C-alpha cells in the first residue's frame, strides 16, 4: 500500500483553442475541507447543498494551479504562485463562458479522479477479501494448532 499522504501531483487538461489548465490531481484533506467549507451550505436538516453562486469559483480555486491563458498582448497571464485571493481576482476577470469551460473541465477531472479512487478501493477490497472475511476462522473451524 502506498503512502496515505497526497503528493502534490498535477494533471494538465486541454480546453478549447489549444489552451491548457494545470490542476491538482487530488486535494489533500485540508484543501478539500477549506474548499468544501466555501462550496457548500448546511441546511436546517443538516444536509449539505451546493452554494448556488459560489460553488463553481471555489471548486476552480481549489484545483487550479496554472494555465496557458494569454492576455490581449499575447503575454501569458501568470497565476502559478498567487495566493487564493489574488488567484480569485484573476479568475473573476475571465469572460463567463470561459470560466464555465474551465469549471466544466475541472468537474470532469474531479469525477474521473473519484471514479479512479473508487475502482482502486474496490480492487483493494476484492484482493483482501480472503483474509478479511473468514467466517470459518471466526467459528473456530480452522484455527488452533494441529499437534
Amino acid at each position: 500500500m502506498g503512502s496515505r499522504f497526497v503528493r502534490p501531483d498535477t494533471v494538465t487538461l486541454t480546453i478549447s483553442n489549444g489552451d491548457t489548465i494545470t490542476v491538482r490531481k487530488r486535494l489533500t484533506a485540508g484543501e478539500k475541507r477549506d474548499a468544501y467549507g466555501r462550496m457548500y451550505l448546511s441546511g436546517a436538516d443538516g444536509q449539505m447543498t451546493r452554494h448556488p453562486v459560489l460553488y463553481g469559483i471555489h471548486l476552480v480555486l481549489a484545483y487550479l494551479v496554472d494555465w496557458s491563458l494569454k492576455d490581449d498582448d499575447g503575454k501569458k497571464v501568470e497565476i502559478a504562485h498567487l495566493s487564493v485571493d489574488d488567484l480569485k481576482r484573476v479568475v473573476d476577470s475571465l469572460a463567463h463562458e470561459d470560466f464555465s469551460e474551465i469549471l466544466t473541465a475541472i468537474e470532469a477531472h474531479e469525477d474521473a479522479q473519484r471514479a479512479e479512487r473508487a475502482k482502486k478501493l474496490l480492487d483493494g477490497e476484492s484482493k483482501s477479501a480472503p483474509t478479511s472475511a473468514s467466517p470459518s476462522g471466526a467459528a473456530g473451524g480452522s484455527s488452533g494448532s494441529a499437534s
Partner: protein
Amino acid sequence: MVTGERGSLRWGYRPVASVLAWSLHARTLSGRVTDVDTYGISQRPLVFVATTERKVWRFSVLELQIADGHLTARLSSQET
C-alpha cells in the same frame, strides 16, 4: 547579493514554509522561516520561490537547515 521581503519553499505546487527577509548570496539562502508545514518540508524536491515586480525566481533547494526560526539553504545555480 539579492534580497527580498517574502518568499516561499514549495513541494510541487504546495507551499511548505514562508521565508521572510531573505537574502541570497553565493547560492546560499538565509531568512526567517514561518508557517512551516512540517510534513511538507520533509519531502523532496523543494523549490525556493520568490516573486519580485519583474519576475518569479525559482531555485531548487539542495540542502536545508532550520534552527530557531532561521533558515539556511544551498540552492541550485540554475533557476528551475
